[in-house]
Protein backbone atom coordinates (compact mmCIF):
# COMPACT_ATOMS: atom_id res chain seq x y z
CA UNK A 1 0.00 0.00 0.00
CA UNK A 2 1.42 3.34 -1.00
CA UNK A 3 0.54 6.76 -2.35
CA UNK A 4 1.95 7.18 -5.81
CA UNK A 5 1.86 10.01 -8.27
CA UNK A 6 1.18 8.04 -11.41
CA UNK A 7 1.37 9.32 -14.95
CA UNK A 8 -1.68 9.03 -17.17
CA UNK A 9 -0.63 7.33 -20.36
CA UNK A 10 -4.13 6.83 -21.77
CA UNK A 11 -7.66 7.84 -20.81
CA UNK A 12 -10.06 7.00 -23.62
CA UNK A 13 -13.76 6.54 -23.91
CA UNK A 14 -14.42 2.91 -24.92
CA UNK A 15 -18.22 2.86 -24.62
CA UNK A 16 -20.93 5.33 -23.70
CA UNK A 17 -19.60 7.14 -20.57
CA UNK A 18 -17.13 4.28 -20.03
CA UNK A 19 -13.42 5.16 -19.93
CA UNK A 20 -10.29 3.07 -20.00
CA UNK A 21 -7.50 4.65 -17.97
CA UNK A 22 -3.90 3.51 -18.08
CA UNK A 23 -1.41 4.91 -15.58
CA UNK A 24 2.27 4.26 -15.03
CA UNK A 25 4.16 4.19 -11.75
CA UNK A 26 5.77 2.15 -9.01
CA UNK A 27 2.43 1.29 -7.41
CA UNK A 28 1.60 -1.08 -10.25
CA UNK A 29 4.33 -3.46 -9.16
CA UNK A 30 2.72 -3.85 -5.74
CA UNK A 31 -0.59 -5.30 -6.90
CA UNK A 32 -0.95 -8.58 -5.05
CA UNK A 33 -4.03 -10.18 -6.51
CA UNK A 34 -6.91 -9.61 -8.93
CA UNK A 35 -9.88 -7.80 -7.41
CA UNK A 36 -7.85 -5.28 -5.45
CA UNK A 37 -8.68 -1.63 -5.98
CA UNK A 38 -7.17 1.83 -5.79
CA UNK A 39 -8.42 5.10 -4.25
CA UNK A 40 -7.94 7.95 -6.71
CA UNK A 41 -7.69 11.63 -5.86
CA UNK A 42 -9.51 13.34 -8.70
CA UNK A 43 -10.12 16.84 -7.40
CA UNK A 44 -8.45 19.45 -5.28
CA UNK A 45 -9.20 19.46 -1.61
CA UNK A 46 -12.35 21.53 -1.92
CA UNK A 47 -14.21 20.22 -4.93
CA UNK A 48 -14.67 16.44 -5.23
CA UNK A 49 -12.88 16.13 -1.93
CA UNK A 50 -13.12 12.42 -1.30
CA UNK A 51 -11.10 9.95 -3.32
CA UNK A 52 -12.89 7.57 -5.68
CA UNK A 53 -12.47 3.78 -5.32
CA UNK A 54 -11.88 2.02 -8.65
CA UNK A 55 -11.00 -1.62 -9.27
CA UNK A 56 -7.79 -2.64 -10.91
CA UNK A 57 -8.67 -4.07 -14.33
CA UNK A 58 -5.24 -5.09 -15.50
CA UNK A 59 -1.60 -4.80 -14.47
CA UNK A 60 1.62 -4.99 -16.37
CA UNK A 61 4.13 -5.24 -13.57
CA UNK A 62 7.14 -5.16 -15.84
CA UNK A 63 6.18 -1.87 -17.47
CA UNK A 64 4.55 -0.66 -14.24
CA UNK A 65 1.31 0.04 -16.04
CA UNK A 66 -2.10 -0.36 -14.44
CA UNK A 67 -5.46 -0.27 -16.24
CA UNK A 68 -8.77 0.87 -14.74
CA UNK A 69 -12.18 1.06 -16.38
CA UNK A 70 -14.75 3.44 -14.94
CA UNK A 71 -18.03 5.08 -15.72
CA UNK A 72 -17.95 8.88 -15.84
CA UNK A 73 -21.17 9.50 -13.99
CA UNK A 74 -20.92 11.85 -11.03
CA UNK A 75 -18.84 14.87 -10.21
CA UNK A 76 -15.60 13.02 -9.46
CA UNK A 77 -15.55 10.45 -12.24
CA UNK A 78 -16.45 13.15 -14.79
CA UNK A 79 -13.39 15.07 -13.68
CA UNK A 80 -11.33 11.93 -13.86
CA UNK A 81 -12.37 11.56 -17.50
CA UNK A 82 -10.81 14.94 -18.23
CA UNK A 83 -7.28 13.95 -17.24
CA UNK A 84 -5.04 14.03 -20.28
CA UNK A 85 -2.07 11.95 -21.24
CA UNK A 86 1.04 13.02 -19.33
CA UNK A 87 -0.84 14.42 -16.34
CA UNK A 88 -0.22 13.14 -12.84
CA UNK A 89 -2.85 11.30 -10.79
CA UNK A 90 -2.40 10.73 -7.08
CA UNK A 91 -3.35 7.15 -6.41
CA UNK A 92 -3.55 5.27 -3.12
CA UNK A 93 -3.27 1.53 -3.37
CA UNK A 94 -3.28 -1.32 -4.01
CA UNK A 95 -6.05 -1.80 -1.48
CA UNK A 96 -8.07 -4.61 -0.02
CA UNK A 97 -8.18 -8.33 -0.60
CA UNK A 98 -9.09 -9.62 -4.02
CA UNK A 99 -10.30 -12.87 -5.51
CA UNK A 100 -8.53 -15.88 -4.00
CA UNK A 101 -7.00 -18.05 -6.71
CA UNK A 102 -4.35 -20.03 -4.83
CA UNK A 103 -6.68 -22.89 -4.08
CA UNK A 104 -8.02 -23.25 -7.62
CA UNK A 105 -6.28 -26.08 -9.43
CA UNK A 106 -5.06 -26.13 -12.99
CA UNK A 107 -7.61 -27.73 -15.27
CA UNK A 108 -10.58 -26.73 -13.17
CA UNK A 109 -13.37 -24.52 -14.53
CA UNK A 110 -14.13 -21.07 -13.15
CA UNK A 111 -17.15 -18.95 -13.99
CA UNK A 112 -16.64 -15.20 -13.87
CA UNK A 113 -19.84 -13.16 -13.65
CA UNK A 114 -19.73 -9.40 -14.08
CA UNK A 115 -22.34 -6.67 -14.26
CA UNK A 116 -21.71 -3.18 -15.68
CA UNK A 117 -18.69 -1.51 -14.11
CA UNK A 118 -18.29 -4.66 -12.02
CA UNK A 119 -16.80 -6.31 -15.10
CA UNK A 120 -13.30 -4.69 -15.02
CA UNK A 121 -11.66 -6.58 -12.10
CA UNK A 122 -12.67 -9.88 -13.73
CA UNK A 123 -10.29 -9.20 -16.58
CA UNK A 124 -7.11 -9.36 -14.51
CA UNK A 125 -8.64 -12.29 -12.65
CA UNK A 126 -9.22 -14.17 -15.90
CA UNK A 127 -5.66 -13.50 -17.06
CA UNK A 128 -4.29 -14.80 -13.78
CA UNK A 129 -6.48 -17.89 -13.95
CA UNK A 130 -5.35 -18.60 -17.49
CA UNK A 131 -1.75 -18.39 -16.36
CA UNK A 132 -2.53 -21.02 -13.76
CA UNK A 133 -4.14 -23.25 -16.38
CA UNK A 134 -7.66 -22.70 -15.08
CA UNK A 135 -10.38 -22.55 -17.71
CA UNK A 136 -12.57 -19.46 -17.40
CA UNK A 137 -16.06 -18.79 -18.75
CA UNK A 138 -17.18 -15.17 -18.70
CA UNK A 139 -20.73 -13.97 -18.34
CA UNK A 140 -20.99 -10.22 -18.67
CA UNK A 141 -24.22 -8.34 -18.12
CA UNK A 142 -25.00 -4.82 -19.27
CA UNK A 143 -28.05 -2.60 -19.51
CA UNK A 144 -27.79 -2.02 -23.22
CA UNK A 145 -25.53 -2.38 -26.21
CA UNK A 146 -23.78 0.99 -26.21
CA UNK A 147 -22.22 0.46 -22.79
CA UNK A 148 -20.78 -2.97 -23.53
CA UNK A 149 -16.98 -3.01 -23.30
CA UNK A 150 -14.08 -5.48 -23.36
CA UNK A 151 -16.09 -8.22 -25.10
CA UNK A 152 -13.23 -8.99 -27.43
CA UNK A 153 -10.65 -8.88 -24.65
CA UNK A 154 -12.58 -11.46 -22.64
CA UNK A 155 -13.20 -13.63 -25.70
CA UNK A 156 -9.45 -13.81 -26.19
CA UNK A 157 -9.22 -15.42 -22.76
CA UNK A 158 -12.12 -17.87 -22.95
CA UNK A 159 -15.80 -18.41 -23.77
CA UNK A 160 -17.72 -15.19 -23.20
CA UNK A 161 -21.47 -14.58 -22.98
CA UNK A 162 -22.86 -11.07 -23.08
CA UNK A 163 -26.33 -10.21 -21.83
CA UNK A 164 -28.22 -6.96 -22.12
CA UNK A 165 -31.37 -6.10 -20.26
CA UNK A 166 -33.01 -4.74 -23.40
CA UNK A 167 -31.69 -7.45 -25.69
CA UNK A 168 -29.84 -5.00 -27.90
CA UNK A 169 -26.79 -7.26 -27.73
CA UNK A 170 -26.22 -10.92 -26.81
CA UNK A 171 -28.76 -12.71 -24.67
CA UNK A 172 -31.73 -10.60 -23.62
CA UNK A 173 -32.01 -10.55 -19.84
CA UNK A 174 -29.69 -11.07 -16.91
CA UNK A 175 -26.50 -12.99 -16.31
CA UNK A 176 -28.53 -15.51 -14.35
CA UNK A 177 -30.49 -16.32 -17.50
CA UNK A 178 -27.28 -17.50 -19.14
CA UNK A 179 -26.39 -19.54 -16.08
CA UNK A 180 -29.81 -21.20 -16.02
CA UNK A 181 -29.83 -21.87 -19.72
CA UNK A 182 -26.37 -23.46 -19.91
CA UNK A 183 -26.22 -25.16 -16.52
CA UNK A 184 -22.41 -25.15 -16.68
CA UNK A 185 -20.30 -27.69 -14.87
CA UNK A 186 -17.87 -25.59 -12.85
CA UNK A 187 -15.66 -25.59 -9.77
CA UNK A 188 -15.64 -22.00 -8.55
CA UNK A 189 -17.56 -18.82 -9.30
CA UNK A 190 -16.36 -15.22 -9.00
CA UNK A 191 -18.68 -12.25 -9.33
CA UNK A 192 -18.64 -8.48 -9.26
CA UNK A 193 -21.57 -6.22 -10.03
CA UNK A 194 -24.77 -4.72 -8.67
CA UNK A 195 -26.16 -6.07 -5.42
CA UNK A 196 -29.32 -7.64 -6.92
CA UNK A 197 -27.06 -9.70 -9.18
CA UNK A 198 -24.87 -10.75 -6.27
CA UNK A 199 -27.94 -11.66 -4.23
CA UNK A 200 -29.31 -13.81 -7.03
CA UNK A 201 -25.99 -15.63 -7.28
CA UNK A 202 -25.77 -16.10 -3.53
CA UNK A 203 -29.25 -17.59 -3.52
CA UNK A 204 -28.74 -19.92 -6.47
CA UNK A 205 -25.06 -20.79 -6.63
CA UNK A 206 -23.72 -21.16 -3.12
CA UNK A 207 -23.23 -24.91 -3.35
CA UNK A 208 -19.81 -24.46 -4.94
CA UNK A 209 -17.26 -21.86 -3.77
CA UNK A 210 -18.60 -18.42 -4.70
CA UNK A 211 -16.72 -15.15 -4.21
CA UNK A 212 -18.46 -11.80 -4.38
CA UNK A 213 -16.86 -8.40 -4.74
CA UNK A 214 -18.84 -5.66 -2.96
CA UNK A 215 -19.14 -1.90 -3.23
CA UNK A 216 -19.72 0.57 -0.42
CA UNK A 217 -19.33 4.31 -0.14
CA UNK A 218 -15.93 4.92 1.36
CA UNK A 219 -14.12 7.52 3.38
CA UNK A 220 -10.55 6.40 4.00
CA UNK A 221 -10.46 3.06 2.08
CA UNK A 222 -7.75 1.83 4.44
CA UNK A 223 -9.91 0.55 7.29
CA UNK A 224 -9.87 3.50 9.67
CA UNK A 225 -13.18 5.32 9.33
CA UNK A 226 -15.70 2.48 9.40
CA UNK A 227 -17.75 3.98 6.58
CA UNK A 228 -17.84 0.80 4.55
CA UNK A 229 -18.92 -1.94 6.92
CA UNK A 230 -21.23 -4.89 6.33
CA UNK A 231 -22.65 -7.11 9.06
CA UNK A 232 -21.49 -10.71 9.13
CA UNK A 233 -24.12 -13.34 8.45
CA UNK A 234 -22.86 -15.22 11.49
CA UNK A 235 -24.24 -13.36 14.52
CA UNK A 236 -21.64 -15.08 16.71
CA UNK A 237 -18.75 -13.63 14.74
CA UNK A 238 -16.26 -12.06 17.13
CA UNK A 239 -16.38 -8.66 15.44
CA UNK A 240 -19.82 -8.89 13.88
CA UNK A 241 -18.86 -6.88 10.84
CA UNK A 242 -16.39 -6.65 7.97
CA UNK A 243 -14.89 -3.60 6.30
CA UNK A 244 -15.35 -3.69 2.53
CA UNK A 245 -12.19 -1.64 2.01
CA UNK A 246 -9.70 -3.64 4.04
CA UNK A 247 -11.36 -7.01 4.78
CA UNK A 248 -12.89 -7.08 1.28
CA UNK A 249 -13.92 -5.97 -1.24
CA UNK A 250 -14.11 -9.71 -2.09
CA UNK A 251 -15.88 -11.97 0.38
CA UNK A 252 -16.85 -15.59 0.27
CA UNK A 253 -20.63 -15.88 -0.21
CA UNK A 254 -22.22 -16.26 3.20
CA UNK A 255 -19.62 -14.25 5.07
CA UNK A 256 -21.43 -10.90 5.08
CA UNK A 257 -24.98 -9.66 4.69
CA UNK A 258 -25.09 -7.96 1.33
CA UNK A 259 -25.87 -4.26 1.56
CA UNK A 260 -29.01 -2.98 -0.12
Amino acid at each position, binding site marked *: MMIDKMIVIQNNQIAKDIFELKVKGALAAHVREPGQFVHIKVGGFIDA*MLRRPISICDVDKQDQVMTMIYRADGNGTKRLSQYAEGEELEILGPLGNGFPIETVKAGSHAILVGGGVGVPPLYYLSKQLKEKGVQATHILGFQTENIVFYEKEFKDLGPTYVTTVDGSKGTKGFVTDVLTEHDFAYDVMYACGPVPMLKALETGYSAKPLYLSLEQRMGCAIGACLACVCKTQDPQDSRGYRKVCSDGPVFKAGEVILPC
Partner: protein
Amino acid sequence: MLNVSLPGLNMKNPVMPASGCFAFGREFNQFYDLNELGAIAIKAATKEARYGNPTPRVAETPGGMLNAIGLQNPGVDKIISDELEWLKQFETPIVANIAGSQTEDYVYTAEHLSKQSRVNALELNISCPNVKEGGIAFGTIPEVAAELTAKVKTVSEVPVYVKLSPNVSDIVAMAKAVEQAGADGLSMINTLLGMRIDLKTGKPILANKMGGLSGPAIKPVAIRMIYEVSQHVNIPIIGMGGIENADDVIEFFLAGASAVAIGTANFVDPLCCPKIIRELPKRLKEMNVNHINDLKGRSWRSCQETLSSH
Protein backbone atom coordinates in the same frame (compact mmCIF):
# COMPACT_ATOMS: atom_id res chain seq x y z
CA MET B 1 9.07 26.08 18.06
CA LEU B 2 6.18 23.60 17.88
CA ASN B 3 5.99 21.97 21.32
CA VAL B 4 2.86 22.78 23.27
CA SER B 5 1.76 21.81 26.70
CA LEU B 6 -1.87 21.33 27.61
CA PRO B 7 -3.38 19.66 30.68
CA GLY B 8 -2.23 16.05 30.55
CA LEU B 9 -0.73 16.50 27.10
CA ASN B 10 2.92 17.28 26.57
CA MET B 11 2.99 17.48 22.82
CA LYS B 12 6.11 17.90 20.73
CA ASN B 13 3.92 19.54 18.12
CA PRO B 14 0.34 20.78 18.24
CA VAL B 15 -1.08 18.34 15.68
CA MET B 16 -3.24 15.32 16.48
CA PRO B 17 -5.58 13.29 14.32
CA ALA B 18 -9.20 13.90 15.33
CA SER B 19 -11.28 11.24 16.99
CA GLY B 20 -13.09 8.89 14.64
CA CYS B 21 -10.93 9.70 11.66
CA PHE B 22 -7.94 7.65 12.69
CA ALA B 23 -9.41 4.60 14.43
CA PHE B 24 -6.68 3.53 16.87
CA GLY B 25 -3.79 4.30 14.58
CA ARG B 26 -3.02 0.86 13.17
CA GLU B 27 -3.92 1.76 9.59
CA PHE B 28 -1.99 5.02 9.51
CA ASN B 29 1.02 3.37 11.09
CA GLN B 30 1.48 1.68 7.71
CA PHE B 31 2.19 5.14 6.28
CA TYR B 32 4.30 6.78 8.98
CA ASP B 33 5.59 6.42 12.52
CA LEU B 34 2.86 7.45 14.96
CA ASN B 35 5.57 8.93 17.19
CA GLU B 36 5.71 11.84 14.73
CA LEU B 37 2.33 13.05 15.97
CA GLY B 38 1.78 15.55 18.77
CA ALA B 39 -0.96 13.34 20.19
CA ILE B 40 -3.64 10.93 19.01
CA ALA B 41 -7.37 11.25 19.67
CA ILE B 42 -8.67 7.72 19.41
CA LYS B 43 -12.10 6.63 18.20
CA ALA B 44 -15.01 7.17 20.60
CA ALA B 45 -15.39 4.44 23.20
CA THR B 46 -18.76 3.43 24.66
CA LYS B 47 -19.52 1.16 27.56
CA GLU B 48 -20.75 -1.67 25.34
CA ALA B 49 -19.68 -2.56 21.82
CA ARG B 50 -21.72 -0.78 19.15
CA TYR B 51 -22.28 -1.61 15.54
CA GLY B 52 -23.33 1.89 14.59
CA ASN B 53 -25.67 2.96 11.82
CA PRO B 54 -26.63 1.17 8.62
CA THR B 55 -24.77 2.07 5.42
CA PRO B 56 -24.30 4.26 3.38
CA ARG B 57 -22.60 6.12 6.18
CA VAL B 58 -20.73 8.80 4.24
CA ALA B 59 -21.54 11.25 1.44
CA GLU B 60 -19.64 14.01 -0.26
CA THR B 61 -20.82 17.64 -0.08
CA PRO B 62 -19.44 20.89 -1.53
CA GLY B 63 -16.13 21.36 0.29
CA GLY B 64 -16.95 18.73 2.85
CA MET B 65 -18.48 15.40 3.71
CA LEU B 66 -21.27 13.97 5.82
CA ASN B 67 -20.80 10.97 8.07
CA ALA B 68 -23.14 8.94 10.18
CA ILE B 69 -20.89 6.18 11.45
CA GLY B 70 -22.85 6.10 14.68
CA LEU B 71 -20.08 5.46 17.20
CA GLN B 72 -19.21 1.97 16.01
CA ASN B 73 -16.59 0.64 18.43
CA PRO B 74 -15.73 -2.63 20.17
CA GLY B 75 -16.60 -1.28 23.63
CA VAL B 76 -14.33 0.08 26.33
CA ASP B 77 -13.00 -3.27 27.56
CA LYS B 78 -11.80 -4.41 24.17
CA ILE B 79 -10.34 -0.99 23.48
CA ILE B 80 -8.32 -1.29 26.64
CA SER B 81 -7.20 -4.86 26.05
CA ASP B 82 -6.53 -4.68 22.31
CA GLU B 83 -6.00 -1.13 21.18
CA LEU B 84 -4.39 0.63 24.13
CA GLU B 85 -2.17 -2.39 24.55
CA TRP B 86 -1.02 -2.09 20.95
CA LEU B 87 -0.47 1.64 21.36
CA LYS B 88 2.04 1.00 24.16
CA GLN B 89 4.80 0.71 21.58
CA PHE B 90 4.46 4.47 20.90
CA GLU B 91 5.16 7.43 23.12
CA THR B 92 2.59 9.80 21.62
CA PRO B 93 0.10 11.05 24.21
CA ILE B 94 -3.38 9.57 23.82
CA VAL B 95 -6.66 11.43 24.11
CA ALA B 96 -9.41 8.91 24.74
CA ASN B 97 -12.73 10.05 23.29
CA ILE B 98 -15.78 8.74 25.12
CA ALA B 99 -19.46 8.77 24.30
CA GLY B 100 -22.67 7.40 25.67
CA SER B 101 -26.43 7.66 25.80
CA GLN B 102 -26.70 8.23 29.54
CA THR B 103 -24.60 9.79 32.27
CA GLU B 104 -23.85 6.38 33.78
CA ASP B 105 -22.34 5.15 30.50
CA TYR B 106 -19.99 8.13 30.36
CA VAL B 107 -18.98 7.74 33.97
CA TYR B 108 -18.30 4.03 33.57
CA THR B 109 -16.25 4.48 30.43
CA ALA B 110 -14.38 7.49 31.81
CA GLU B 111 -13.46 5.71 35.00
CA HIS B 112 -12.08 2.68 33.20
CA LEU B 113 -10.21 4.54 30.50
CA SER B 114 -8.69 7.18 32.76
CA LYS B 115 -7.05 4.44 34.84
CA GLN B 116 -5.04 3.25 31.87
CA SER B 117 -1.41 4.34 31.91
CA ARG B 118 -1.62 4.87 28.14
CA VAL B 119 -4.45 7.43 28.42
CA ASN B 120 -3.27 11.00 29.00
CA ALA B 121 -6.59 12.80 28.74
CA LEU B 122 -10.25 12.15 28.16
CA GLU B 123 -12.34 13.88 25.54
CA LEU B 124 -16.06 13.90 26.33
CA ASN B 125 -17.97 13.62 23.10
CA ILE B 126 -21.20 15.30 24.19
CA SER B 127 -22.09 16.22 20.69
CA CYS B 128 -22.25 13.27 18.40
CA PRO B 129 -25.05 14.07 15.98
CA ASN B 130 -25.40 10.51 14.81
CA VAL B 131 -26.83 8.75 17.78
CA LYS B 132 -30.53 8.34 18.18
CA GLU B 133 -31.27 7.77 21.86
CA GLY B 134 -30.83 10.66 24.28
CA GLY B 135 -27.56 12.43 23.86
CA ILE B 136 -28.69 15.63 22.21
CA ALA B 137 -29.36 17.37 25.52
CA PHE B 138 -25.76 16.75 26.62
CA GLY B 139 -24.52 18.81 23.71
CA THR B 140 -27.04 21.62 23.64
CA ILE B 141 -28.16 22.44 27.19
CA PRO B 142 -25.44 24.10 29.28
CA GLU B 143 -26.70 22.75 32.61
CA VAL B 144 -26.89 19.19 31.35
CA ALA B 145 -23.41 19.41 29.87
CA ALA B 146 -22.07 20.88 33.11
CA GLU B 147 -23.58 18.15 35.22
CA LEU B 148 -22.11 15.45 33.01
CA THR B 149 -18.71 17.12 33.08
CA ALA B 150 -18.75 17.36 36.87
CA LYS B 151 -19.70 13.68 37.25
CA VAL B 152 -16.95 12.55 34.89
CA LYS B 153 -14.44 14.82 36.64
CA THR B 154 -15.09 13.05 39.97
CA VAL B 155 -14.06 9.69 38.55
CA SER B 156 -11.39 10.65 36.05
CA GLU B 157 -7.74 10.34 36.95
CA VAL B 158 -6.64 12.38 33.94
CA PRO B 159 -7.61 15.84 32.63
CA VAL B 160 -10.99 16.03 30.89
CA TYR B 161 -11.61 17.89 27.63
CA VAL B 162 -15.19 18.51 26.59
CA LYS B 163 -15.88 18.33 22.88
CA LEU B 164 -18.49 20.93 22.01
CA SER B 165 -21.18 20.72 19.37
CA PRO B 166 -21.47 23.63 16.94
CA ASN B 167 -25.21 23.01 16.61
CA VAL B 168 -26.11 25.44 19.39
CA SER B 169 -27.43 28.98 19.69
CA ASP B 170 -24.84 30.06 22.22
CA ILE B 171 -21.49 28.33 22.14
CA VAL B 172 -20.00 30.63 24.77
CA ALA B 173 -22.66 29.60 27.29
CA MET B 174 -21.85 25.94 26.67
CA ALA B 175 -18.13 26.55 27.06
CA LYS B 176 -18.47 28.54 30.26
CA ALA B 177 -20.81 25.97 31.77
CA VAL B 178 -18.41 23.09 31.30
CA GLU B 179 -15.45 25.20 32.38
CA GLN B 180 -17.20 25.99 35.63
CA ALA B 181 -18.02 22.32 36.04
CA GLY B 182 -14.32 21.57 36.02
CA ALA B 183 -13.40 20.82 32.42
CA ASP B 184 -9.64 21.07 31.89
CA GLY B 185 -9.94 21.94 28.22
CA LEU B 186 -12.28 22.13 25.25
CA SER B 187 -12.30 20.43 21.87
CA MET B 188 -14.16 22.24 19.16
CA ILE B 189 -15.83 21.80 16.92
CA ASN B 190 -17.60 18.56 16.31
CA THR B 191 -19.56 18.26 13.06
CA LEU B 192 -22.49 20.40 11.93
CA LEU B 193 -25.71 18.51 11.44
CA GLY B 194 -26.44 18.16 7.73
CA MET B 195 -28.15 16.12 5.04
CA ARG B 196 -28.02 15.35 1.35
CA ILE B 197 -30.77 13.93 -0.76
CA ASP B 198 -30.05 11.56 -3.62
CA LEU B 199 -31.86 12.80 -6.71
CA LYS B 200 -32.00 9.31 -8.17
CA THR B 201 -33.95 7.85 -5.25
CA GLY B 202 -35.47 11.03 -3.85
CA LYS B 203 -34.35 9.90 -0.40
CA PRO B 204 -31.54 11.00 1.93
CA ILE B 205 -28.21 9.53 0.79
CA LEU B 206 -27.22 8.43 4.27
CA ALA B 207 -29.16 5.48 5.65
CA ASN B 208 -29.28 7.41 8.94
CA LYS B 209 -30.72 10.35 6.96
CA MET B 210 -28.77 13.06 8.81
CA GLY B 211 -25.07 13.11 9.34
CA GLY B 212 -22.24 15.25 10.61
CA LEU B 213 -20.76 17.77 8.20
CA SER B 214 -16.96 18.06 8.34
CA GLY B 215 -14.15 19.33 6.15
CA PRO B 216 -13.12 22.76 4.81
CA ALA B 217 -16.75 23.87 4.38
CA ILE B 218 -17.13 24.20 8.16
CA LYS B 219 -13.83 25.92 8.87
CA PRO B 220 -15.32 29.44 9.07
CA VAL B 221 -17.81 28.22 11.68
CA ALA B 222 -15.04 26.58 13.71
CA ILE B 223 -12.83 29.67 13.55
CA ARG B 224 -15.70 31.91 14.63
CA MET B 225 -16.60 29.72 17.60
CA ILE B 226 -13.01 29.36 18.79
CA TYR B 227 -12.53 33.11 18.41
CA GLU B 228 -15.55 33.74 20.61
CA VAL B 229 -14.98 31.04 23.20
CA SER B 230 -11.24 31.59 23.68
CA GLN B 231 -11.99 35.13 24.83
CA HIS B 232 -14.38 33.88 27.49
CA VAL B 233 -12.68 30.88 29.05
CA ASN B 234 -9.33 30.24 30.72
CA ILE B 235 -8.93 26.65 29.63
CA PRO B 236 -7.14 25.66 26.43
CA ILE B 237 -8.93 24.73 23.23
CA ILE B 238 -8.06 21.93 20.85
CA GLY B 239 -9.25 23.41 17.56
CA MET B 240 -10.58 21.45 14.61
CA GLY B 241 -12.90 21.66 11.63
CA GLY B 242 -11.63 21.60 8.07
CA ILE B 243 -7.91 21.81 8.70
CA GLU B 244 -6.00 20.80 5.61
CA ASN B 245 -2.60 22.48 5.74
CA ALA B 246 -0.16 24.43 7.90
CA ASP B 247 -1.86 27.75 7.13
CA ASP B 248 -5.10 26.39 8.53
CA VAL B 249 -3.31 25.35 11.72
CA ILE B 250 -1.98 28.88 12.05
CA GLU B 251 -5.44 30.32 11.48
CA PHE B 252 -6.79 28.18 14.34
CA PHE B 253 -4.00 29.39 16.64
CA LEU B 254 -4.67 33.00 15.69
CA ALA B 255 -8.34 32.41 16.53
CA GLY B 256 -7.39 31.14 19.98
CA ALA B 257 -6.63 27.41 19.79
CA SER B 258 -3.76 25.88 21.78
CA ALA B 259 -3.50 22.71 19.70
CA VAL B 260 -5.35 21.30 16.71
CA ALA B 261 -6.94 18.09 15.50
CA ILE B 262 -7.26 16.95 11.92
CA GLY B 263 -10.12 14.77 10.81
CA THR B 264 -11.43 14.58 7.28
CA ALA B 265 -8.13 15.54 5.68
CA ASN B 266 -6.72 12.14 6.71
CA PHE B 267 -9.06 10.52 4.19
CA VAL B 268 -8.01 12.84 1.40
CA ASP B 269 -4.33 12.40 2.14
CA PRO B 270 -3.29 9.72 4.64
CA LEU B 271 0.03 11.54 5.01
CA CYS B 272 -1.49 14.93 5.83
CA CYS B 273 -0.60 14.99 9.54
CA PRO B 274 3.16 14.48 9.19
CA LYS B 275 3.16 16.76 6.13
CA ILE B 276 1.55 19.57 8.11
CA ILE B 277 3.93 19.02 11.01
CA ARG B 278 6.82 19.40 8.58
CA GLU B 279 5.34 22.47 6.87
CA LEU B 280 4.72 24.36 10.10
CA PRO B 281 8.26 25.48 11.05
CA LYS B 282 8.80 26.83 7.53
CA ARG B 283 5.63 28.88 7.64
CA LEU B 284 6.40 30.18 11.13
CA LYS B 285 9.84 31.30 9.99
CA GLU B 286 8.32 33.12 7.01
CA MET B 287 6.02 34.88 9.46
CA ASN B 288 8.91 35.71 11.81
CA VAL B 289 7.31 33.77 14.61
CA ASN B 290 9.60 32.06 17.11
CA HIS B 291 7.09 29.72 18.63
CA ILE B 292 3.63 28.72 17.57
CA ASN B 293 2.36 29.60 21.04
CA ASP B 294 3.06 33.24 20.22
CA LEU B 295 0.23 33.14 17.71
CA LYS B 296 -2.36 31.98 20.20
CA GLY B 297 -5.34 34.34 20.18
CA ARG B 298 -3.42 37.03 18.32
CA SER B 299 -6.53 37.83 16.25
CA TRP B 300 -8.24 39.28 19.31
CA ARG B 301 -5.39 40.20 21.64
CA SER B 302 -4.42 43.85 21.38
CA CYS B 303 -1.13 44.84 19.76
CA GLN B 304 0.21 45.62 23.22
CA GLU B 305 -0.24 42.10 24.44
CA THR B 306 1.13 40.46 21.34
CA LEU B 307 4.14 42.73 21.04
CA SER B 308 5.83 40.94 23.93
CA SER B 309 6.08 37.83 21.84
CA HIS B 310 7.79 39.48 18.89
